[in-house]
């Protein structure tokens, strides 16, 4: 009976705390972003400033482009790697696991400094160098997402069936394995995309302009506009990550049905 007396006070405390830590800043920022000129009234003026501001579209476009490339490269690199690991390369698994955890251990700031020292000049001269580092930063999450979904399918059986029916390796991966681990792939794809589009540290230390770094510069001219950008980015992130959750749920249900 003790539990009954404790339950509601505990839930109330938790809800109040959560409101204070999470909802209040969100609510505050949203309210602020609709303030009118000189802080009076409510209007769309900050959002209008945002879409007309110098550099809004170019930086957003750069970020989108780099994020799409990073997500694509990530899959191209990691899907064959993870399939091989789970199929034949078991003895390399702990090594790959360790390499994929490293980006969590090595502070991104340190990696950025290292990149400045180590990367050849031709790479440092193009913004596309960021794509490679976005892939590195996403490795811990990609590894987890792909590994989890590969372990839920009968990989060996699928591959043997496909190969004995005469399919090549490339065809087996694209037509058999990829559909079977769709949930893991969408998860890895969206996570890499989300991480890349919000990446600030490496981008600013390597002196490139993407949407997040542009935001910081723009904030110095118009703080209300910067808050509007933040609300815009945050809502975008929530939409994106909810999409991941939705997709991966649906995908995993499919796999269960197929088995």
């Amino acid at each position, binding site marked *: 009976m003790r539990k009954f007396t404790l339950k509601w006070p505990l839930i109330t405390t938790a809800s109040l705390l959560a409101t204070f830590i999470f909802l209040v800043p969100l609510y*505050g920022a949203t309210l602020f972003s609709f303030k009118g000129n000189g802080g009076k009234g409510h209007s769309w003026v900050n959002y209008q400033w945002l879409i007309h501001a110098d550099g809004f579209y170019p930086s957003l476009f750069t970020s989108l482009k780099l994020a799409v490339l990073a997500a694509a490269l990530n899959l191209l690199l990691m899907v*064959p790697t993870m399939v091989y690991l789970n199929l034949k390369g078991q003895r390399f698994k702990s090594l790959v696991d360790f390499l994929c955890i490293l980006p969590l251990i090595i502070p991104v700031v340190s990696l950025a400094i290292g990149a400045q020292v180590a990367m050849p000049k031709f790479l440092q001269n193009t913004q596309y160098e960021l794509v490679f580092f976005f892939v590195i930063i996403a490795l811990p999450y990609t590894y987890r997402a792909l590994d989890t979904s590969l372990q839920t399918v009968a990989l060996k059986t699928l591959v043997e069936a496909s190969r004995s029916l005469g399919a090549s390796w490339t065809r087996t991966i694209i037509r058999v394995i990829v559909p079977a681990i769709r949930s893991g792939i969408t998860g890895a794809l969206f996570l890499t995309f989300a991480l890349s589009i919000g990446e600030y540290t490496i981008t600013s230390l390597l002196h490139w302009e993407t949407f997040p770094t542009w935001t910081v510069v723009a904030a110095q001219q118009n703080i209300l506009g910067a*808050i509007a950008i933040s609300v815009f980015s945050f809502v975008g992130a929530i939409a994106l990550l909810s999409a991941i959750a939705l997709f991966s749920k649906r995908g995993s249900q499919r796999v269960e049905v197929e088995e």
Partner: protein
Amino acid sequence: MLPLLPFFIFTAFFLIWPVIAVTLRSFKGNKNEWTLANYRPILHKGPYFHAFVTSLKLSITTAVIGSILGAFFAYIIVKYARGKFGAVIDSISAVFANSGGVPLAFMFVAAFGTEGIVTKLLKDFGWDIYAGHFTIFSFTGVVLVYSFFQVPLMVLVFKPAIAGLRHEWEEASINLGASPFTYWRRVGIPLLVPSFVGAFFLLFAGGFSAYATARALTVGTVPLVPIIIGTLVDGNVISDQANLGDALAVGMILVATVAMAGYIWAGRRAARWRQS
């Protein structure tokens, strides 16, 4: 082995090589000679030593707050939020835990800045949070902002540990005459300690390395190691030692490595009872 080659080449070039390169250069002086001089300012009292102390203080404080509050939330969620609602809370936690960065900083300015919504609201209730030393751009301000991602990160990491406590264990100890208090003191809490410690290390490492939020929020008013590295890289601060930033970066790697070793060690201890 052959199909793994692209992966090994990629990580060797874009992950391992930069770390080796920065480590090597941190031992080079202005005239390219081998030296330990770059590390001296970190070990002796001064602005760089102070930056490490501030960074450590910040990451320990936010890890303490994050892990305690997060563990509390995780317990409530496991106990009372099941089914659909639990799944919704899971994805919200994932969003918030990954929400560090620039937008977060500006959102908190809107809420807790001098003109912020919360600041004004609290003033109406007679509490002026700006009466004392507090500003959102100070150490305390950064702690507040970091909680926004540290708490949900703790929820994500620690929830499985609480969910893994088997109901049978509680029943067994109560059948043996234990009160709920005794159960928690003798069974529940000892079982959760390794996971808690592990999660604490993870939060510590995250808080220590975080750059974007603090950079956008404080613009250098709180001297943190990553921020100082940033100003050295941008050339805003000129040091007579060209490779000082490299030594700071290596120092950060060392601290983070110790924290992650703690995380992995605690994770192994926690796994001991979970698999049986």
